[in-house]
């Protein structure tokens, strides 16, 4: 008949090639081998294999979806064909890698093309058999995806949640509690229970909602209060009982979250892209170090943590204002580069021999005392957790309250259009400086707690990458939105902290995440309602 009813080979093959490229990249960059050490289901599935499976699933899904969208009532065979083809193509790339790698040594150029990698890809079987199995897996997964996609929505969701939860539980188990993934039985149990739960919820959620709505208002309110505040509050407050390692992880999250909340004010509320944000963190940490450490001899006195804390914050605020003044007239990308320059200058100064007598140079400052209230000393990860928690709660509270105040609205007006804002009577200088100052205060607080937590600070802790890290977490989480920033910090700081083998690949993933987010979902995972609307309506041309 006409052209439309033919199977679209070209776009399917293109997706397959793309999938193969991605899988190959993951292998060659070393991610697969590095994460192979962590079992998901011991003896059956490792984290590295899970990553490759995820790639397969993703691209097969894309292909099937695209075939489905190409016309109405696509024949089922087409869906299966496209899924299988993409799965086969993706794994064919890996098979080709194994074949070529067995023939010539690629390691002279690609350091990760090692026999160990080939072993993982061929599942430890002999090369010939392994390659066949590899291709079969590709085809089978592709076919399974296309079959799953023709199921009803509720079944799709049940399978997705069940399968997704297995690696999550396995990772948490092995990372936080030194276990080894989940056993086969455990995995089946998780799958069945989650899938059943998801199905049941799908079926009965309307009835439950009606039930809750029918409650007397008083009970209804207290139920809502319990779910929204007491439950999460209790989890957050009681978190340290999980032990010192989970608390340590949460402390890292807290440190970045505190900075993220500050940067959120500068970038998210006021729209001033600050890439030198680490400078304020450094100033807070160094003030704490200089004022409290007995190592510093040029000061005639030493303060305790609590006495030094206000100084650390005030100094950060002051530096925020001082660094803010010269950049008041700059917009957008110029501001970004200049603040980046500030961040670098601060780090160079911290390392230099010039300031060594005052702030320790490359040797840093050590012997910084811990914080203490009466007899309680904050010296374990569990207790420091509460310091960060208090800081984060304070910062989140202030952000939330300021957001819709006169100042917050002025920030948003400046973000949207400086000239119009000024015409409306907003004092640009004051508004911008307030943003820099508030942001700097949170970073300074974070730095001060950080200094006391580590008891020592070195200039290398204040690298530009920290700024990028913080920027990344607020962008991925949802810029301008406080719950978004929290989610971003948990994902981008907590997850890599748990998955130690990814430490090397952290920045690679950040880079990829930034680009993908900007291309696909510039408003972030948990966006602010207003920004989502803004970014998804057609933007008028920006060209001048």
């Amino acid at each position, binding site marked *: 008949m006409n052209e439309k009813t033919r199977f679209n080979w070209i776009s399917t093959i293109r997706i397959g090639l793309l999938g193969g490229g991605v899988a190959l990249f993951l292998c060659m960059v070393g991610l697969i081998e590095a994460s192979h050490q962590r079992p998901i289901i011991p003896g059956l599935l490792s984290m590295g294999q899970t990553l490759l499976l995820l790639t397969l699933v993703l691209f097969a899904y894309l292909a099937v979806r695209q075939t489905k969208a190409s016309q109405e009532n696509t024949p089922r065979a087409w869906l299966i064909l496209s899924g299988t083809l993409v799965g086969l193509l993706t794994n064919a790339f890996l098979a080709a890698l194994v074949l070529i790698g067995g023939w010539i040594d690629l390691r002279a150029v690609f350091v990760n093309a090692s026999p160990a990698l080939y072993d993982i890809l061929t599942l430890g079987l002999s090369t010939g058999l392994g390659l066949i199995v590899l291709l079969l897996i590709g085809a089978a997964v592709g076919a399974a995806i296309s079959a799953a996609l023709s199921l009803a929505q509720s079944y799709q969701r049940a399978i997705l949640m069940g399968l997704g939860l297995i690696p999550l539980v396995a990772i948490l188990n092995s990372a936080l509690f030194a276990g080894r993934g989940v056993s086969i039985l455990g995995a089946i149990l998780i799958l069945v229970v989650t899938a059943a739960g998801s199905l049941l919820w799908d079926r009965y959620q309307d009835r439950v909602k009606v039930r809750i709505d029918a409650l007397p208002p008083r009970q209804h309110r207290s139920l809502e209060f319990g779910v929204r505040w007491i439950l999460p509050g209790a989890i957050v407050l009681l978190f340290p009982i999980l032990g010192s390692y989970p608390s340590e992880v949460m402390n890292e999250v807290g440190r970045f979250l505190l900075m993220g909340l500050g940067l959120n004010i500068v970038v998210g509320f006021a729209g001033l892209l600050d890439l030198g944000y680490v400078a304020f963190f450094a100033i807070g940490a160094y003030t704490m170090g200089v004022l409290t450490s007995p190592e510093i001899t040029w000061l005639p006195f030493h303060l305790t943590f609590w006495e030094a804390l206000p100084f650390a914050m005030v100094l950060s605020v002051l530096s925020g204002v001082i660094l803010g003044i010269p950049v008041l007239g700059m917009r*957008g*990308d110029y501001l970004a580069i200049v603040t980046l320059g500030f961040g670098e200058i601060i780090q160079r*100064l911290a390392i230099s*021999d010039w300031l060594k007598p005052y702030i320790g140079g490359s040797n840093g400052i050590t012997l910084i005392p811990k914080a203490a209230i009466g007899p309680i000393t904050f010296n374990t990860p569990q207790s420091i957790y509460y310091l960060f928690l208090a800081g984060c709660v304070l910062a989140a509270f202030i952000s939330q309250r300021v957001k819709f105040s006169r100042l917050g609205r002025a920030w948003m007006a400046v973000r949207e259009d400086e000239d119009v804002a000024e015409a409306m009577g907003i004092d640009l200088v004051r508004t911008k400086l307030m943003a820099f100052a508030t942001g700097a205060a949170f970073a300074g607080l974070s730095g001060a707690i950080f200094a006391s937590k580590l008891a020592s600070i070195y200039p290398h802790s204040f690298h530009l990458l920290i700024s990028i890290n913080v920027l990344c977490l607020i962008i991925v989480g949802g810029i301008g939105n406080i719950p978004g920033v929290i989610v971003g910090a948990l994902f981008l700081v907590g997850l890599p902290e748990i998955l130690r083998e990814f430490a090397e690949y952290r920045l690679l993933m950040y880079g990829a995440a930034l680009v993908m987010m900007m291309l696909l979902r510039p408003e972030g995972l948990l966006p602010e309602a207003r920004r989502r609307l803004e970014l998804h309506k057609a933007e008028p041309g920006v*060209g001048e």
Partner: protein
Amino acid sequence: MLKRLTRRFSGTTIVMWLIGLAILAIVVMGTILTLSSGKYKASEWLDLTINGLALGGIYALIALGYTLVYGILRMINFAHGDIFMAGPFAAYFVAVAFDNANYFGGDAALEVIALTVIMIFAMVVSTVLAILLERIAYRPLRRAPRLIPLITAIGASFFLEYSFRGLFGSGVKSYPEVAFLQGKWIIFGIAILKIRVVVIAAAILMLLGLNTFVQRTKVGKAMQAVSEDKDTAALMGIDVDRIIVITFLVGGALAGAAGVLYVLMFRQVTFIMGFMPGLKAFTAAVLGGIGNVVGAAIGGFFLGIAESLFPNLVLDGLGIPAPYQLRDALAFVLLVLVLIFRPTGIVGERLAAKKA
């Protein structure tokens, strides 16, 4: 009277001028103190200046990439420094192959052949990456709000750096030594390292070539038209997409070439080596007035010389120990000062405060 004065000079302007004057005073004082102490001989100053020229040539070549892209897309291609890294990094493997085949044994003809191939290979790799970057990351965002392409570029920069690290290893890789470029030539009675002569000459040649390309050829004129006004250029029958691709192509090729020159001087590659030169080249582009081809060249040389001379000339006199540690900081101080006091750059129009 006073009221009129305060209206003309707001508080911040006065503060900024005071800061500027203070910095100027420090620079002058440091220079006088250094020169009067007689710690360095004239030949040493000359040496530093020529080193600065060579560095400046490299910065100028990278800066052109920033300037061309900024002129046309009004975006800072943050990943340009990594394009600069990618060429010579990939060409390292070619260089090793040549070395294994004994091309770097001292025969000048063979070495020139090897260097030419390395240069072309590096330029091709950088160009291909630059074009891919434009196609995948920047093109879909051409009409997006302004910060979005910048954040994308930052992401792309880190992605490129750490991909190279993952693919090719994190160690420092040393290029083979080029025998005929060792030692010095005597030019006008001054002994200059041969490598520096080659780098400066190559950079100047390429800069002149680019200038002719932009000023005289049809494509170059189309580039100017697009940077002036995209929509009108499109109405005049210029294929804007094609011109943008060509811009990235030219910028990438120059960055790759600059990378090889850089490697000739420092003889090693790492995945992170593009970061600092990239930032400094951006500084150079701003110094010269971003969007301006001649300005980028001037800014590059100016920054190179400043960076080479300043630590010794100014900071040494002030009694700061190990002034070379503050070299990178100085480049940024310069950037900040230019943006505050002369956002137009040395040559060029006012863009820093211009609205997107």
